[in-house]
């Protein structure tokens, strides 16, 4: 087990190194920040001076090493537009994004499992057809369109819920602001999970040990809850783990629709304003969270299922 943990951590570390390299190279090509920073009537000489002061006249590998050295200490430089350290700007936004992603995650898991179970146990009934019809729709709806529709219906037509920002710091306001973005972000994975729970449970219900349990005279409820569901959830847990990371990516769009003050919106603003260090910092930190989450999922999985450790 120790060996497995060490190997996975080492792998995650290498992946992060690759990510920083990829992001750096991509952003290195992104245009000349010096032109953006210099005043419009700066002379060629002034521009050169600025470039030298910022260290942008050095070869790319030196700049990368410099960037990497800073990054491990949490130093991603300063935002070109806001003048503050990138690290602080990103960290400020993390709670909002994590709150949104976590709420969407809970929303999708709490609903998808019962829906999938009901669908599987009442296969081909009207419940099943309705649930799977909605699941198919949910997988085909663009996140931003769902958001816009929810804002229109619940924000405008009925006027029940706020549709922009994170609200005042009090609990009720926060919760009311959270509902629409969380539903928007969680719907896709809700649909995916419901379909997965259904097909996984159907497969398990056909296995011999379930027939044995039934033959012993155990009630159908216990057969499903105690015997079938546990095994049926194994593939679901894997997918759910990966999904939490994907929610961080989807948050970029949801945050834009709902003016949610998270990292995703910060990133889009940084790109629109060509704020090079801020964009690099935001992408790197999101990727880091993503890699750490995947590592945790893998380690948990290796702990639960010994076969994984040796593959």
């Amino acid at each position, binding site marked *: 087990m120790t060996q497995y943990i060490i190997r996975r951590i080492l*792998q995650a570390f*290498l*992946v*992060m190194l*690759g*990510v920083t*390299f*990829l*992001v750096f190279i*991509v*952003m290195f*090509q*992104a*245009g000349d920040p010096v032109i953006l920073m210099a005043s419009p009537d700066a002379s060629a000489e002034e521009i050169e001076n600025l470039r030298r002061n910022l260290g942008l006249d050095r070869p790319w590998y030196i700049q990368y090493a410099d960037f990497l050295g800073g990054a491990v200490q949490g130093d991603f430089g300063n935002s070109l537009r806001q003048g503050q350290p990138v690290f602080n700007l990103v960290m400020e936004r993390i709670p909002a994004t994590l709150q949104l992603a976590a709420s969407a995650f809970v929303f999708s898991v709490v609903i998808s499992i019962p829906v999938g179970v009901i669908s599987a146990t009442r296969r081909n009934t009207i419940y099943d057809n309705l649930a799977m019809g909605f699941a*198919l*729709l949910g*997988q*085909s*709806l*663009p*996140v*931003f*369109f769902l958001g*816009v*529709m929810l*804002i*229109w219906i619940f*924000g*405008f037509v009925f006027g029940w819920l706020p549709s922009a920002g994170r609200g005042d710091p009090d609990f009720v306001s926060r919760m009311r602001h959270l509902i629409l973005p969380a539903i928007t972000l969680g719907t896709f994975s809700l649909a995916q999970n419901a379909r*997965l729970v259904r*097909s*996984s449970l159907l497969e398990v219900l056909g296995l011999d040990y379930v027939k044995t349990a039934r033959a012993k005279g155990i009630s159908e409820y216990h057969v499903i809850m105690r015997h079938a569901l546990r095994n049926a959830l194994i*593939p679901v847990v894997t997918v759910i783990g990966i999904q939490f*990371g*994907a929610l*961080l*990516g*989807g948050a*970029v*769009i949801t945050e*834009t*629709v709902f003016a949610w003050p998270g990292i995703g919106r910060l*990133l*889009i603003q940084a*790109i*629109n304003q060509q704020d090079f260090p801020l*964009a690099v910092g935001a*992408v790197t930190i*999101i*990727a880091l969270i*993503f*890699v750490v989450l*995947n590592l945790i999922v893998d380690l948990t999985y290796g702990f639960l299922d010994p076969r994984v450790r040796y593959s």
Partner: protein
Amino acid sequence: MAEPNEGAAESRKKSTDAGQSQPERANSLARVGAKSTKRRMPRALSSLFANKLATFGAIVLVLVTFAAIFAPVIAPHDPNAQMLVDNRQPGIWSSEGSSTYILGTDSLGRDIFSRILYGAQISLLVGITAVALAGAIGITLGLISGFYGRFIDDVIMRIADVQLAIPFILLAIAILAVLGQGLQNVILTLGIANWVVYGRVVRGQVLSWKEKEFVEAARSIGARDVSIMLKHILPNTFASIIVIASFAVAATILAEAALSFLGLGVPPSIPTWGGMVNRGRDNILTGEWWIYTFPGLAIMFTVLAVNVIGDWLRDYLDPRMRV
């Protein structure tokens, strides 16, 4: 992952045939491996029409394709013509609407129906070409990685790991931020951002197929590596590739719409469904719901159609992929 198909079974049977000289047997084995995945179309079509959802999907896709190809003929207006006097008009459902603009107009007085028809061109073009590009990159790298193994395999798979460590949409945003707006850039970005899934699946299959007898047979009669990869191994991975590609088309159409929505994708001068929803957002509070609802529904139905076709293809070609 894929069912070992006729090629493998037949090659095993034939390899026990007596009376054939060694090179002859190798020759026939190699031929069998090469043409193992031929399937008859009529069977596929009858299976398609037996499935109601898939039939629905096929009809929607035919309609969307028709709309895209014949947009210049069907569209009642120039999609970019701004009739400012007619701005924000409702469509034929309203007493204030007119039959001139059946789905209404947007805030610049452009005809929404015409823009949706032209938008279909972009969605389909990006959906198909970006998936083809991703497939080409992924299949090539997957074949090389699985076939040669060792160092090159390590390098390619570690690149794949790095790419998977960045959420797909984030990677696309980062690449587009550099390349800038533009149709070609969107296709290129979505192609590059999406190759990993093909690469991994093809590599996995190559690893198992390259140990088969018919590959050995091909090698023993002197077939070159490239010809073994393309003629003997690749055809056996087609079933999985087609299934992955069909779902990738849906995901790519959604991604293109999302990028256009974020203002990073296709430039605003070209009508796109995602861009239309984005512009329409300003009209939520003034109540002109048709400006964003119709393009949004267009994306939804197209993606839904591709998804149900994907479901059907998976059940038809490769039932074991069902999760």
